[in-house]
């Protein structure tokens, strides 16, 4: 089955471009602002959208995304509202893939089958669930594949060659390479290590490899884009959203536009990367 993600990466390949993958947390700082940013992301250059499902205990995330999760939950975010955001986005964009990213408990609590039917109905294309390693594939990965969703797995520097085949076995859509051992938004990766790691993963799979964790500037995004099929930026965008909240906790007027302007700069970095490299 060809999914929206497959089509998107295939098209980018023919255009010889890397994918720009953006992450924002659903409902941060509130539902309407997320929806405005979400709708503007494709025009700002996002090729794939990761939408974070807020969870009280984001164990693999650094301070920026933890704080965004807290803001979202405080503003009333919930699983149903996250799915509603996707549904509303999908009403006006039938091409840009959306991947839900988060932790297993809110999904488990809703019930896996119910969640999968609601997610496919809303127009979700893939899932990244941080705390579900291949050892727990029967929990969600296998049912998600049966429902036609891509299950995108994280590979990390600790995933050695012996383990890589198990990690890749049920992965589809793309492989998300976490460039550093650590939490989101921490130290930036070294380009040389990233290139070697991407090459290593590509020896085991024909899937596109997107790289994330620690990419904060258009220059860093460009560096990654030269060496991988995609660059993921999360914490830096989430920080830009945080800067749009005034000391009284209100969202500043024009917030979505300014966040999208920042996203565009990052996108230009990614999309110009290979052109620059060719010069």
């Amino acid at each position: 089955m060809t999914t929206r993600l497959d089509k998107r990466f295939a098209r980018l390949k023919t255009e010889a471009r890397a994918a720009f993958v953006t992450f924002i947390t659903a409902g941060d700082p509130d539902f309407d602002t997320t929806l405005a940013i979400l709708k503007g992301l494709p025009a700002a250059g996002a090729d794939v959208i990761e939408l974070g499902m807020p969870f009280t205990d984001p164990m693999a995330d650094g301070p920026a995304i933890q704080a965004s999760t807290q803001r979202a939950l405080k503003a009333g975010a919930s699983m149903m509202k996250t799915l509603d955001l996707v549904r509303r986005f999908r009403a006006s964009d039938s091409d840009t893939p959306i991947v839900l990213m988060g932790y297993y408990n809110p999904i488990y609590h809703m019930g896996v089958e119910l969640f999968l039917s609601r997610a496919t109905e809303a127009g979700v294309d893939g899932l990244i669930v941080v705390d579900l390693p291949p050892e727990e594939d029967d929990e969600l990965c296998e049912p998600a594949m049966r429902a036609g969703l891509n299950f995108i797995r994280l590979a990390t520097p600790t995933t050695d060659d012996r383990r890589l085949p198990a990690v890749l076995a049920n992965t589809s859509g793309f492989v998300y390479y976490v460039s550093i051992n650590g939490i989101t938004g921490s130290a930036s990766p070294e380009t040389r290590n990233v290139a070697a790691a991407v090459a290593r993963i590509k020896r085991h799979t024909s899937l596109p490899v997107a790289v994330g964790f620690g990419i904060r500037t258009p220059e860093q995004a460009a560096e990654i884009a030269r060496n991988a099929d995609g660059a993921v930026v999360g914490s830096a965008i989430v920080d830009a959203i945080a800067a749009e909240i005034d000391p009284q906790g209100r969202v500043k007027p024009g917030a979505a536009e300014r966040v999208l302007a920042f996203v565009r700069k990052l996108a230009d970095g990614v999309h110009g990367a290979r052109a620059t490299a060719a010069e």
Partner: protein
Amino acid sequence: MSTSQANSLRNGPDERGRFGIFGGRFVAETLMPLVLDLDKAYTAAKNDPAFQAQIDFMQRDYVGRPSPLYLAERLTEKFGGAKIYMKRDELNHTGSHKINNCLGQILLAMRMGKTRIIAETGAGQHGVATATVCARFGLPCVVYMGTTDIERQKPNVFRMKLLGAEVVPVTSGTGTLKDAMNEALRDWVTNVDNTYYLIGTVAGPHPYPAMVRDFQSVIGNETKAQMQEREGRLPDSLVACIGGGSNAMGLFHPFLDDRSVKIYGVEAAGKGLETGEHCASLKGGSAGVLHGNRTYLLQDEDGQIKDGHSISAGLDYPGIGPEHAWLHETGRAEYVSATDKEALEAFQLCSRLEGIIPALEPAHALAFVSKLAPTLPKDHLMVMNMCGRGDKDVFAVADHLGVTL
């Protein structure tokens, strides 16, 4: 006749780290290779007599084991029913059962060539025990502790610092044990090469729940032998308090196949189960996945984790060890609860009648004993786990009783 191997309740977990549907390895990919390594290293150590000999030696000469099994005559008389024995793990070095586990794990960490130890702590007892073994074996120690807990457990914070540990305040969430555990996991993901995460309770990804249980089972094994010596038979019931549930699991596990022994775990009911302000994951929660395992959790209708409340920082955790969740569902153990108020009353009663100031955690167990014991015959042998001493709690208790120190 002993239960056959196949029907034993002591065989868990399975190769996936599960007790029934509970347990498992729900961790990020970065940690997965480490968790698998740990499992392999622990299995090898467990089967190495030299490792066990090392633990036994330290348990005797450093911790002071075996801890006594003490007949609490005045409480027995006061309640007027069952004969109440206390397993005196509060007499251990560092003042609680936590050291049993820390000793086993630090010896394992050293076998694995790890050079840095991290831990989470709630009441501070596990933090102190970890800092203690780190001092003894010369390893650097970082303890994550919520800011709320730091405030209510000042003496333990200072003890950890005296022992050379770095105490890192955790401000996220409500600044309690679950937040400290999140932060310790973040540290571990970041420092995978040299760091050993010394988890303090029977929770977390496999093999932690089984490993911590094994290290704590010295409590139940000693109890069995001591009761045999004193009374010539098995006890009739066991009672222990439960936060994550390590002291309880240590007492219960060796008795799981002795079906005549009734088993009671006492959760913290806080201000009362009906108020929603409690830490009773089994009585007031539902199945979910947090901190690497599936178990019972306090959560809302969206699957978001709720903050617990208890007068006792050591019980203030929104989950419970997965083996307890399984014992609850299979009915082998019965889980009950005691409120803050009941625990405070038991705390004072024990101090006055037995000359033992208990920690607020086992005061919950004693609160349940005070209800159950009077209903039982005088030849009923009950063992309550006195898993910690109350020195750390005197300030908090004074505060609750309206006394200014």
